[in-house]
């Protein structure tokens, strides 16, 4: 776990960091953060509990416990990562452990929007390439320099162009991922909608 944790703020354009790999499809949010840790009224202490049950199971051999992965901030995963519950506690726990970016074959929808909403860019790459990266990481440490505007990940000997939804990319580059104020700019239109939708007036009790 990283010592100093700072919440992301504003525009996110570049990230440099060490990669950590987690192999397997369909890793659900119950595994990322088991339900008992949802009994909290803030997210602050979630970092240490990320993957708690999986980690206990592997007795120190889980990627999130391995000494060499200390300080990592770029998570490399396979397909349908973050499926299951809508708990934002899952990306929050990852973020508070130190994860700043996730690269994977694919993400579950709600998990993906939660990541965007808290400032974690998620990129995709084809399965074969992810596998190659994960293989490489078995042998060597991997540090990526990620550039969001070109969607590239570069290291000493690897170089990838990453996929990201155009809308998400723009949100990071402009800082719009932190959506509240952007949404409130359209206040007049929102009130118009409220007055226009028929069902708002269906029940006047």
């Amino acid at each position, binding site marked *: 776990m990283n010592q100093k944790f700072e919440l992301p703020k504003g525009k996110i354009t570049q990230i440099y960091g060490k990669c950590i790999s987690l192999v397997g*499809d*369909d890793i*659900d949010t*119950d*595994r990322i953060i*088991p*339900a*008992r840790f*949802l*009994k*909290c*009224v*803030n*997210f602050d202490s979630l970092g240490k509990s990320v993957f708690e*049950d999986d980690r*206990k*199971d592997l007795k120190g051999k889980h990627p999130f416990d391995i000494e060499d992965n200390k300080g990592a901030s770029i998570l490399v995963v396979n*397909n*349908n990562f973050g*499926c*299951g*519950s*809508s*708990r*934002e506690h899952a*990306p*929050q726990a990852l973020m508070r452990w130190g994860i700043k970016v996730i690269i994977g074959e*694919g993400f*579950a*929808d*709600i998990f993906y*929007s*939660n990541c965007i*909403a*808290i400032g974690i860019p998620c990129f995709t790459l084809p399965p074969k390439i992810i596998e190659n990266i994960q293989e490489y990481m078995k042998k060597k440490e991997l540090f990526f320099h990620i550039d969001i505007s070109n969607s590239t990940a570069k290291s000493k000997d690897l170089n990838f162009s990453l996929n990201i939804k*155009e*809308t*998400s990319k*723009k*949100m990071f580059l*402009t800082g*719009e991922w932190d*959506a*509240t104020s*952007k*949404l*409130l700019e*359209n*206040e007049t*239109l*929102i009130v118009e*909608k*409220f007055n226009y*939708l*028929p*069902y*708002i007036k*269906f*029940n006047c*009790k």
Partner: protein
Amino acid sequence: MSKNTLFDKVWDLHRVCSLPGGSDQIFIGLHLIHEVTSPQAFGALKDKNLKVKFPSRTFATVDHIVPTDNQSRPFKDILAEQMIGTLEKNCIDNNIKFFNIGSGNQGIVHVVAPELGLTQPGMTIACGDSHTSTHGAFGSIAFGIGTSQVRDVLASQTLAMNRLKVRQIWCENNLSNGVYAKDLILHIINQLGVKAGVGYAYEFAGPAISALSMEERMTICNMSIEGGARCGYINPDEKTFSYIKDRLCSPDVDNWQQAIIWWKSLRSNTNSIYDDVIKIDASQVEPTVTWGITPGQSVGVNQKIPKLNEIDPNDQFIAEEAYEYMKFNPGQEIKGTPIDVCFIGSCTNGRISDLRVAAQVLKHHKVARNVKAFVVPGSEKVAEEAKKEGLDKIFKDAGFQWREPGCSMCLAMNSDKLIGNQVSASSSNRNFKGRQGSPNGRTLLMSPAMVAAASIAGKVSDVRDIINK
């Protein structure tokens, strides 16, 4: 791109504008909150010095953490007490209607909102819970959101979202006797896979869907998310309208006709274009049971757990993980698997019709020795109705514990948990590793009728052998 489907019409009606980044700003007609995913959202609102924009469009209840044995306050669990206390305060401070324990209207958020008539066709509905897809059964576009998005809805009544694609799942023919909506949705997820719905809204349609009651339709839409689809829906029909009529928050008499005309106008029709259509033959569905650690890993009760070479190569990795975790041998029969705990409840199958079906199976039977069985009604209203019909007595006579409403062992945030590697037969929706409270607990998902059958035999059984006797 889909066109003229209910999804498209509702989406367009609720689009406030297109955002510079290219996503849509969508108005949320109904916002539901509960104790687990809302406290941080209210906290963030406060930090940003913002107010709840339209408090009249948000409704609250408490479900995830509530104890189901002794609900007197303060709760024994201090953290649970703190969470309900926080929700109570947030609702008072922000003028939000809260259906608290003892109000007669408390329960699992996805059971309560339809019961109150809050859930209606044509709405956009959001809640900090992935099973919000349930409300799509009424022809609304309903989806789960995370806490930061809960904050956004509180602050602006809108969300920044990307439009989903629409896949129609056409269910032909009818379900046979002893086969229920739960079996159908488990079957669909098995056929399509747990990732197939990513990026899609699922429209469930066809004769088998039309034939379902509203509560069964909720079971179907509830589990859309287990197939990867954030949102699932069914076009509204006469059954939908008559379910909604005369509930606490349904349209007033004066607005009723207008409401029906509007609702009908939203339905998908012959002009609708889908991104994708898939056909399912409902008559082929058997009582279905999961054997693995994703809701897609299921078989008909009379089938064998698939061998590795019978599984799609992409799903083999997780299948191996599942054999090991569940302690099943590939090729083994699922029928006859010994069961330790039976759980009937959850937002998938904790409604009155679910309890009726299970009670019907249990009548004149006893729960097997060594099986712990309990039933948790989905809401106070469900509990009240069940008692009126004497269902509680049937359950108790059979050896079930009768509990107070809540989510309970669906996710085990209260004290209802599996112990060690116990095996549960559960009417809930997720069989993920550790889901039911023990890091190595094992969950077999099935219909409430099948849970009842398992409780009697103490092992996985075909409910049709009991009801057809």
